[in-house]
């Protein structure tokens, strides 16, 4: 399995290219790439989700096409007319608007399926490893929660069995109360024990308070983000300054996260190693990222006002195929998923 950071880069590249691509041919290519990666990198036992990319596509694309066709009345190829007295939907229903909506649905499907692949290909532990260190306390809550989930599932089963012995049956919603209350109370009991144990072991007793300077920087970063964003939107004359302010705000926030993370002492039990496969994935994302930076115009396509066949540049298509890297360099051996929080032994 590849490194979580490489996977994240892959998913973000997918997100970027799907949001920029208006050209249905490229979007369709991206969808094929994702489905291929999904089928290679996600093992059969992880196909638990009721919402596979295919089902999402079958639902989203027609819906987006239909809504857009009904609510937008641009385009010259009229299919039929709805009476004008209907608010919003009244007017001409055009083929162009239908196509435009379908492209939107296609792009949404690409985004959805690439992130589904990202989620399913990685173990929960690797996803948590992506959280920055500054979020230590939130991370502790998260890992307590994830540790307690299987325990909660088990105690749910125990309580249900105990209630079933007493003749209780789960029929409607109302029958959940005698199950939920003991579940909650026993969970709170465990929380109390855990809190006592943590206090007894000195958790957070010497936690360094965050420096006033750091928090001032945090506030300043937010001010710059807000000012920069609104400036870039509403004051075209000061665009350069606004973008600089936006950039400085991002730098300030990232700096705060980084410097707060440095104060958290934290050791990794099983460090992940960066392998050649990960470098290949990054290299596979590179052509698409470069295309997005340099040749964004190539992704542009508009069905309005007259529907025309979108252009397809084989070189761009070849660049997008680099995103197949996770599938091409996938590790074939079957993997045990020890840390699945929902599987009870």
């Amino acid at each position, binding site marked *: 399995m590849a490194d979580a950071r490489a996977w994240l880069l892959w998913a973000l590249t997918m997100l970027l290219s799907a949001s920029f691509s208006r050209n249905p041919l490229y979007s369709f290519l991206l969808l094929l790439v994702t489905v291929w990666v999904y089928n290679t990198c996600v093992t059969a036992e992880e196909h638990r989700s009721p919402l596979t990319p295919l089902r999402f596509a079958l639902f989203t694309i027609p819906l987006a096409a239909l809504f857009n066709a009904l609510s937008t009345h641009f385009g010259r190829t009229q299919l039929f007319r709805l009476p004008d007295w209907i608010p919003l939907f009244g007017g001409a229903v055009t083929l162009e608007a239908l196509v435009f909506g379908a492209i939107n649905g296609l792009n949404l499907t690409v985004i959805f399926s690439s992130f589904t692949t990202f989620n399913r290909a990685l173990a929960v532990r690797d996803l948590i490893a992506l959280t920055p260190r500054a979020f230590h306390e939130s991370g502790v809550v998260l890992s307590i929660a994830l540790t307690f989930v299987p325990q909660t599932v088990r105690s749910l089963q125990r309580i249900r069995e105990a209630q079933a012995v007493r003749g209780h049956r789960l029929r409607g919603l109302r029958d959940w109360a005698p199950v939920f209350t003991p579940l909650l109370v026993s969970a709170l009991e465990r929380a109390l024990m855990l809190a006592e144990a943590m206090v007894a072991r000195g958790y957070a007793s010497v936690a360094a308070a965050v420096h006033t300077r750091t928090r001032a920087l945090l506030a300043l970063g*937010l001010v710059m983000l807000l000012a920069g964003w609104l400036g870039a939107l509403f004051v075209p004359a000061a665009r350069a300054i606004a973008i600089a302010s936006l950039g400085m705000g991002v730098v300030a926030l990232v700096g705060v996260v980084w410097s707060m993370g440095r104060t958290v002492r934290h050791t990794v039990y099983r460090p992940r190693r960066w392998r050649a496969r990960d470098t290949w994935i990054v290299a596979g994302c590179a052509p698409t990222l470069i295309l997005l930076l340099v040749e964004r115009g190539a992704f542009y396509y508009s069905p309005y006002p007259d529907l025309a066949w979108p252009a397809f540049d084989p070189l761009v298509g070849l660049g997008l195929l680099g995103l197949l890297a996770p599938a091409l360099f996938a590790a074939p051996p079957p993997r045990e998923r020890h840390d699945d929080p929902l599987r009870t032994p």
Partner: protein
Amino acid sequence: MVRRLLAGMIYALSGVLGILAFLYPFFMPYAPAVSANAIQRQVAPLLTAALVGLSLLALLLELQEQTLSAKTVALMGVLVAVTSVLRFIEVAIPMPGGFSPIFAPIIIAGYVFGARFGFLMGALTLLTSALITGGVGPWLPFQMFTAGWAGMTAGWLPHLHKRWELPLLCLFGFVWGLLYGAIINLYFWPLAQGPVEQSWTQGLGLKDTLLHYAGFYVVTSLMWDLIRAVGNVALLLLLATPMLKALTRFRRRFHFEVERG
């Protein structure tokens, strides 16, 4: 004094930034830089997603510093676990529409433990259940923010006489059931609309945008959200009384102190 001022500033700024980023489709038509430039329009949804993510990060940094001691860490972790298990049941047994059992516990926890706890509880519950059910994606910061707001506003509710507590929480749950869908759609809408030409043409004013959004909302999500709102009320009717009782009792029990000898 300076600390409190800074904390207040961080809450206010990240709140304003978050709300504006959610509402941007409505004021975007008035932005001269955007309506003139096609590339800007394409960047806009991504930029707002990044802004929501960043302000969420800032708010979480500040809140975790203020709220999470050893005791609340354990309490919140366990509450999040129980709520996420409820969410897992939802995924395993498909319920009708947008029904989701996670809001009732978030609202009750926010009501009992206050606004800060409520925000963190909402945000971290969504994060945990996204990790478990495989729902991490660009939509996650929006979901975390919105669920956090549900928990936070629950902390602002007045603590009335016992008789009015349940109706108040039910009404609140109903409103948030609808509101959650409407807010989350704001993220989804510009993408579903397509970032060019049609929706953000220069002439399109606030009224048309609102009308457009209303149409989108009624067609795609009103039924879905109504089911969620009614489900919230049903769950709150069922769970609020025992859960309030248990949480209030445990809130007292969590006030233990270690004697330093």
